[in-house]
């Protein structure tokens, strides 16, 4: 049981961390946190080998390299929105007809875009944050030992991974890896990809075990 709680907290952290890195440019505070933590650096194997990462002034690194790469990837080239990838038209769909938004609403969540720069609720960062919220609820239910609720929440997570995140992020993150010019964003994409695949596998395995 303790193990499960630890794992669930870890998943919350991971979803939150990746959401943050994907939703807007990295800030010096977060970047330093990565730099200072060896365990965390395991997630960034290529960045670790990158000279500028260590030698350049953090602010300069952010402004001259990382922000430029972020813009090239997410603003100019591969738009991080599910609607762009799943609709034939390739347009961002910010309207209330967006199926991702409908999913949030059907499961009791709303989105306040004022808090982000995202144009639409199906931004990869928002989707990851939504997952984080579901896992957070799961953790609360675990604490209450509410088995049914835990089961229900895991079902929702699985469904959202299968129907939404899993449906588009694999080709999307491969494209990000392809276009990334800094080792940092290459690693962000790779870590996200690896994590999402492993998390889905984790949920499948849990199904076979009691909550």
């Amino acid at each position, binding site marked *: 049981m303790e193990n499960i709680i630890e794992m669930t907290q870890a998943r*919350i*952290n991971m979803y*939150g961390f990746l959401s943050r890195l994907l939703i807007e440019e990295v800030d010096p505070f977060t970047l330093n946190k990565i730099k200072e933590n060896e365990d965390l650096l395991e997630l960034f194997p290529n960045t670790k080998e990158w000279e500028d990462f260590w030698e350049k002034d953090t602010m300069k690194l952010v402004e001259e390299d990382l922000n430029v790469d972020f813009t090239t990837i997410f603003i100019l080239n591969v738009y991080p929105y599910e609607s762009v990838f799943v609709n034939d038209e390739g347009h961002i769909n910010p309207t*209330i007809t967006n199926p991702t938004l409908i999913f949030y609403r059907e499961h009791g969540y*709303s989105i306040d875009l004022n808090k982000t720069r995202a144009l639409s609720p199906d931004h990869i960062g*928002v989707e990851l944050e*939504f997952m984080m919220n579901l896992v957070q609820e799961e953790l609360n239910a675990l604490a209450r030992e509410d088995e049914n609720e835990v089961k229900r929440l895991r079902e929702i997570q699985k469904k959202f991974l299968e129907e939404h995140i899993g449906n588009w992020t694999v080709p999307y993150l491969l494209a990000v890896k392809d276009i990334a010019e800094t080792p940092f964003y290459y690693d962000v994409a790779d870590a996200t990809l690896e994590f999402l695949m492993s998390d889905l596998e984790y949920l499948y395995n849990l199904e076979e075990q009691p909550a």
Partner: protein
Amino acid sequence: MRTTRRNFLKTVAAAVGGAALVKGAVEKTTNQAVAEEANLTFTPQHLDYYPPFDKWNDWKEPSGDYWKKHGGALRNGVKLINYMIVPTVCSNCEAACGLTAWVDKDEMVVRKFMGNPFHTGSRGRNCAKGYAALSQMYDPDRIPFPLKRAPGSKRGEGKWVRTTWDEALKTIGERMREVIKKAKNGDEYAKKMIMYHVGRPNYNGFQPRVVWTWGGDYHNSHTNFCSSGGRLGSITWSGDDRTSPDFANSRLIFLSSSHAADAGHYFQQHAGYIADARAKGAKLVVMDPRLSNSAGMADLWLPTWPGTEAAIFLAMASRLLQEDKYNRKFVERWFNWKTLMKDKDYLNYLKKEGIISKVPEGETFDDFISVLKEIYAPYTFEWAAEETKVPIDRLEKLYEMILWAGDRITSYFWRAQAAGNRGGWMSAGRTGNFLLALTGSIGGVGGTGWHHWHALGVGNNGGASTLKDKPKPVDAWSELLWPPEWPIAAYELSIILPHLLSDDEWRKKWEKRGLKIPDKVEVWFGRMYNPVWTNPDGFRWIETLTDENKFGLTIHMSPTWSETSWYVDYILPVGLAGERHDNQTAETKPERWTAFRQPVLRVALKKMGWKPENPARATLEAHKKVGLGEVWEDDEFWINLAWAIDPDGSLGIRQYWESKKNPGQPVTVEEWYNACFSTIPGLKKICEKMGITPYEYMRDRGAWTEETNVYNVMEREVPYDPVKKAIKVKGKWIPLSECDIDENGAVFLKHHNAKKYHSERHILAVKKDGKFLKGFHTPTGHLEYYSKTLVEFGWPEYAIPIYPRTDDQRKKWIHILSHVHHSYMNEENAFVLNPIFRLVYNIHTRSVNAKWLMEISQNHNPVWIHESDAKRLGIKRGEPVKLRVIDTLTGIETGYFVGMAMPTQAIRPGVVACSHHQGRWRVRDFVKVEGFDQGLGVMTFGSTRVNIERDGNTWKMRTVEGTIPREVKAKHHEKWLKWPYPEFNEDIKEVWWKATTGVWQNAVFPPNPDPLSGMQCWHKKVLIEKGGPDDKIGDVVVNTDATFKVYQAWRDKLTRPAPGPNGLRRPKWMPRPWYPHTDSAYRMPGTAGHSSHEE
């Protein structure tokens, strides 16, 4: 993997507090948000979702503007609009796509136009022009009430007074009454002195019926600057004036120009079907000197020299024949080869001309094929490559595709080479259809059908609602519409109307031969037509339109200002796409659909319980009630005008517009269109089942599809009664004893020696295998490889598809040699100018009132010139270039214009191009109107203000100012009037395209009417020079004396005037458009069949 993942998670769990880092955009739903959602009528699952029909009268949807202001549906809530969805039809091009107007029931304004899912042609989709209908409806520069030239001022002075519809009706009605009275009393001139002159009609039948009831030869059109060349090439094959391709099921889409796929005639619908076909594996080939959007996406681009396209068609035909790969079954069954093989005189003529070496002895199909093989043997790929300047390997590729596609080849011949070149009718449709027909790609699935198979226009059929149905055929022939020089013309020669009116010599010449030609048009209506700007030789139009001895009373029916309206007496603001009734159809696919354009605010008001005071003026009343303006619709205006012309009914006009239901009252548009739609059997049947009227069905849904999968109509049987020995044609039994049958099995009426003269024939059926079939609408009932009619009208050399190969032939066959053929390009700076390609987001003269369309099209008519040519002439991007226009028949230089150079690889060397959509101009920014306390803007965001100077016959125009960004406010004191609609026009102050809106190139072009089709031959030879220090982009300099001489030369050196056999002014089987004329009118005075009242 599992181990990796666990390590992964443990690591991160220890390392990062992820939850603290997120943005917190995801929130648990509050009760308030749920309540908001409950207000919505829908939660669609897909983008192509459309509200269910049962909710069209009451539909709630979030406000788009509100979203924009507050950053999306999820920020600060959602404002909902109460809509009524009312169907109508787009009027921005000829495709007649369905629209729905989303009427805000609280504010009584239209908030948006969307597609109409009931419209099976457009399938609920629209192009930018459709959605832009809203910006036209609430255009701040639209004209909000009728205007009249100020008493005492001259035309073009720009002095206007506000008038009323009643005053206009009275003045115009009385003037027309005088002319029509004279005509009824037998004055031949008066039968030709009123003119209704329509631009893009966008209706099927109603207004021709209006003019018909006036009793004279009064209907003119814009068509010969548009599509006469396209039409004649198809008429001479099938009797139908245009093809109707089944693009969606085609294997090879072989387009001559960007037409259909990225601009052009039925763009949006056609483009969608072409895309569908390509998704199934079809190939697209585009023949165009320009790398258009279509050419860029095509499987094969053929950058032909303009006007030489026939060489490719005939080279392909030749190879098919030599290799016996033509469709033998189809050619044998549906070509009129028996007529050719029987006509020894004509075969001897071909021999004499050296086209064949001997007259064949036999008359079998194989003999025919031998003749074809001989005629086309010299049209080799090598020759075609040399002639068209297209590499031979591309021709080989095209041939492979043709063989692969079999009988599923589609094409469309309308403008492009048909409208650009002398002989365009031959180099497009006449030779192009030959290739299609040889492959059997005529009529079947994936092939090319014909217009009348697929169109379903019924706007002329409302006679059951009035006291009297159809008038008699008109007994008059206006030479101002149809001069004797152009008996074969596909439509009226309207490009030369001002020239004919100014040409006393020409008039006297024909008067001596007994014709009665007026030197004045007493009352002239221009509708959706801007001849000053659109026609060639626009300054000649200004000279003539402002001459009160040539044009008596002039009325422009236009919702917006135009170059023409500036020079008339009355501007009557009639409605746009959502402001008037019309029935419209188009042959966009192999089915028969029909659609209903409506004044949507009137329909919404009526559905909400409003009743007009005068039911015959409901649209005007409705538009006043909702504050749109004193904007009327054409239909009700014409009905009321009929009453103004003939208030007591003594002229016999009123009866055609008097309600059968309420005698003594004008017919209402509801009554008229109910009668029209009741003539569609399938629609009538379903309405009976539903318990509604056909009018109600069309009012609520906007479109009806009567028949789908319409193929091979020529094979359909005509009913035959062996007892009566008669066939049934258009509901009438015709005894075979009154008919003749020719060698092909063509059944036609016996009159006027029709067995001998094909020009006299009226085809009824074709007898094949013991059955009577519909066949084609030609004198032989077959596809006419050989047109004997052309022989009878003095053009034997062009009676078969042909094209000159040698210098000698080019001299002899000058009538079908393009006037911009490469042999005319002798100077180093000589180029062909292609001035007629379309921009996909503009529509000729009608998009200047759509700010959205102007924004995306501003500065889009540079002069395209190949990089190598530009380099050679030292011309750089963005620089002014001077294009001197040279007529190749006379060598006369008519003037020049200065455009902006755009060196590019997307055009073939030797050719330059400048789109005809831009270059709109105004002479004043605002007009002060007496009787109204706010100035009216004149095309302020789509045109440039110009200065015009005249020195004798030389006219000069120079740009003075560009567009005008401004704050749109209602400063007038008429509370009812929403004009100039500030709510919709906050963005006018953001108009940023201040620079050039293009150059008015048409003004420099002389009229170049094709000697056969009458088509304006738009392409021009130009000499290009780098602009000098005094040249400014937008400059236009023209000499109208020079343009006049060119018109005279093309008329006198190239045409072969009527009469044809039996005194015919034109072949009887090529009837005049719009409404019927008497048999006598078809014959020249002094010939046997003519019975002039004065003789």
